[in-house]
């Protein structure tokens, strides 16, 4: 299990951009078909809005 911790809420200018790029890389590099147990036709469950 990969896990990335970052402190947010700091005032403007204390940049965590490189941490966010690592998170975005980790998320986009995973293989979603495995994750979703994707069986081809199954459409995602109805969206739950916050």
């Amino acid at each position, binding site marked *: 299990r990969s896990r990335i911790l970052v402190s947010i*809420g700091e005032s*403007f200018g204390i940049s965590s951009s490189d941490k966010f790029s690592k998170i975005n890389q980790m998320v986009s590099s995973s293989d979603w078909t495995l994750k979703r147990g994707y069986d081809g036709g199954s459409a995602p469950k109805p969206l739950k809005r916050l």
Partner: protein
Amino acid sequence: RQQALQKEVSELTRAEDKLDELIAKCNLQLRLLTEDSQNKKLGYVMCQDLRNTVDPPDQLVMVVRAPPETQMEVSEPSDGYQISLKSARGPIEVFLCPED
């Protein structure tokens, strides 16, 4: 060759000291800038600004405004992704940026 190298290293030392001085100055300027009350009031973006920066524009855009030192942890359980937010200095604001 040793004298030439010695000269180069001392020039690099001077250049590095100058950079350290400029970085310290810039950090101070940025902090003063963002802490100025008038600038604090005017330091905002519109929802439309956010919409214009995501591609495709019809994505779901979630905005998180958190107190300082809020811990965000992104982990990869077996299915999907998990994001946890933990603040010890007050509530965290999370809201969706409206589509229009």
